[in-house]
């Protein structure tokens, strides 16, 4: 009667319950949130968009598994983080881009930026962003030609790129940009689809509104005040809806690993990303500044976290001039 159970019991410190969240569930939610933009990319740019995305995912997963096998670590590709990197990398390239750039791109993202720094959670900058920049500076011609949506015609300029030259393209209306009937990278053209994904991430509480709102808000405000082409509203629409702003603000700047943890920090981070994006767009050589802006802000995350550390409960700050 005394020992009804004589088996082994586990002894471990509390807590004895954990939430059902895991890295895998978080990454799965991000992939679900990216799904509308993926579907739209196939509609707009044809099957090639899907092929490039699938290849990018396969390469990222392959490099992660290969690196972990070679270094005799546990293979963690089932946490889906490499898959997310793969999707984001492809989404940041035009569908006309040569498939082989994905090989150095995925290698750079997964091995150089992520694994050499210690794997998931340890990377300093976002792997997909760093890889996009790597491809961009190494093979610039691959990222300067875009396909027209719903056609085989090739366009050399996104609406944002034309605005850079001082012309608001008459070809694409703001509504076209919002729905996704503009040339651009695979995953960035449809603001509507990206906003759907944003809404899903908010509802699932995967991310908070702070970074995207501060980022987009800053870019919108400055673009409205200092239009570089056309009228204020025209330039506002182009700068927010064209170029990778929404994709970057919703999916890349909010990457947990490379963004601050406090709400205040997230606002600072978002505003910083926005300011840098605008500065690069206005004064830089490139029409597009989102990736550079995010990567620069990634480097400041630790300082922003320290700066915005909350005041611990019960530690009331002592008043200055106590000595008097």
């Amino acid at each position, binding site marked *: 009667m005394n020992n009804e*159970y004589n088996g082994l*019991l586990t002894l*471990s410190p*509390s807590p004895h319950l*954990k939430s059902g969240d895991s890295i895998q569930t*978080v990454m799965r939610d991000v992939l679900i949130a990216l799904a509308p933009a993926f579907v739209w990319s196939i509609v707009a740019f044809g099957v090639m968009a899907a092929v490039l995305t699938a290849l990018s995912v396969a390469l990222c997963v392959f490099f992660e598994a290969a690196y972990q096998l070679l270094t005799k670590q546990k293979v963690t590709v089932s946490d889906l983080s490499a898959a997310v990197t793969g999707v984001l990398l492809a989404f940041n390239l035009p569908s006309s881009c040569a498939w082989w750039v994905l090989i150095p791109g995925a290698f750079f993202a997964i091995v150089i930026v992520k694994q050499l720094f210690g794997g998931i959670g340890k990377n300093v900058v976002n792997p997909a962003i760093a890889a996009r920049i790597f491809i961009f500076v190494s093979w610039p011609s691959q990222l300067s030609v875009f396909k027209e949506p719903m056609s085989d015609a090739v366009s050399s300029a996104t609406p944002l790129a034309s605005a850079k030259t001082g012309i608001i393209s008459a070809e694409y209306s703001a509504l076209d940009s919002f729905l996704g009937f503009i040339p651009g990278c695979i995953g960035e053209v449809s603001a509507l689809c990206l906003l759907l994904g944003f809404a899903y991430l908010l509802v699932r509480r995967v991310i908070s509104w702070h970074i995207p709102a501060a980022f987009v808000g800053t870019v919108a405000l400055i673009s409205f005040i200092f239009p570089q082409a056309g009228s204020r509203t025209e330039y506002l629409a182009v700068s927010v809806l064209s170029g990778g702003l929404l994709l970057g603000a919703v999916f890349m700047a909010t990457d947990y690993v490379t963004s601050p943890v406090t709400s205040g920090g997230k606002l600072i981070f978002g505003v910083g990303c926005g300011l840098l994006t605008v500065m690069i767009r206005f004064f830089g050589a490139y029409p597009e500044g989102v990736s550079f802006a995010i990567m620069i802000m990634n480097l400041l995350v630790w300082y922003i976290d320290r700066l915005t550390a909350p*005041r611990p409960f*019960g*530690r009331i700050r002592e008043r200055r001039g106590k000595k008097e």
Partner: protein
Amino acid sequence: MLYTFKGGIHIKEYKLTAAEPVQRLPAPARVRIPLSQHIGAPCTPTVSVGDTVDKGQMIGDVAQGLGCPVHATVSGRVSAIEEVFTPAGRKMRRIVIENDGEDRLCPDIAPLGRPVCDITPQECVEAVRLAGVSGMGGATFPTYAKISSALGKVDKLIINCAECEPFITADHRLMLEEPRSVINGAELLASVFGTEGAMIAIENNKLDAAQALRDALGENGNIHIKIMKTKYPQGDERQLIYALTGKELPAGKLPSDLGCVIFNVETCVNIYRAVNERMPLIERIVTVSGDCVSAPKNVLAPIGTSISELISFCGGFKRKPEKLIIGGPMMGVAQWDPDTPVTKGTNAVLAFSEELCGKADTRYACLHCGKCVRGCPMHLMPLYLAQYASIHDYVMCEKFSIMSCVECGSCTYVCPGKVPIVQLIRMGKARIREEAAAAAAAKQASELRPAEKETEKKPVRQ
């Protein structure tokens, strides 16, 4: 409006036994009564092996220092005074009593015989000490010491009915089944402390209990039922005080420094019994639950009952248990011995399957998601505390206020990367305490030997 605090987390409640009336456990054939059931010095036995004891008879007391006596919880014969290991690896003594089945109550126990409102605070403190009442919410601080240290300092009396841990329903049932006893206790304490009334703080997942208490209140308009948001750790006294008064308890201060005194609801009922009936604390309500228990129940069990007996009373195990836990799932202690007895602080006995408590994750990664920061009731940054503790950087740990951590485990519960955050923090805190103690000892030693101190300094001067 619901009272609450900033931070904290929502946990699935698992209150499986909320509708189970408290059932009295038939007195077990043997009880094992630990001599250390409270914070402070352990008791010294006042009986010897072979003695016959009555139910409610004092069998161990603390001669000096903090601590309160323990009592026999059945009548019978002392068969052994044994030394055992606690789950924390410390040694602890306990008195084993074989029940003779006569249920003889100790003749010293006689009701007060006059209205409780007439007693002086000192009489109350003494009665509570003699009855061996200690905090029953889990912290087990000797209650007489809390009352006497707070006398004359407090103007707010709070009865803590938050019961914010999942699974546990002992307090909930007590309020539903004996609302008048809760009110009696609150009225007694209010008169002892001379406070205008009392606040009874309940989470909004127990509105039926709040209604029962309101019905029992009658004319007394000085006792206020405060409904709080269901959130963990709402029952922590710092969060409770903040929720009700808006004041932050400064680090290192006691609630009485803010004019507050807080009692768990079952403690409050037992204070009343100690004063009015002179009844020592020999039994308590234990929630027996978890996904491995066939028929989870709330059980009124004598102190010293083994947890295996409680589980048998609840139909035994229905599946293989991975962990046996005394206390709640968030802050309770996993046990290795099914003979471990129920003590004054045991509000729950839980049996969890591997599926529920999860296997220890050997590989974990911090995603830097910030969920722990949002969930921390102490407004710390648990991810950095864990990170610095794991690389033994205690200077940075202290910069991030590691010592403010209350070890509630919220951070670890929400972590998607499965980082053992609170475990790493505990390790860091322990090391900092050790180093501080070693430094203090070294300082003391050097002050005792000033000559040596001089020689130590010399090379620096040269």
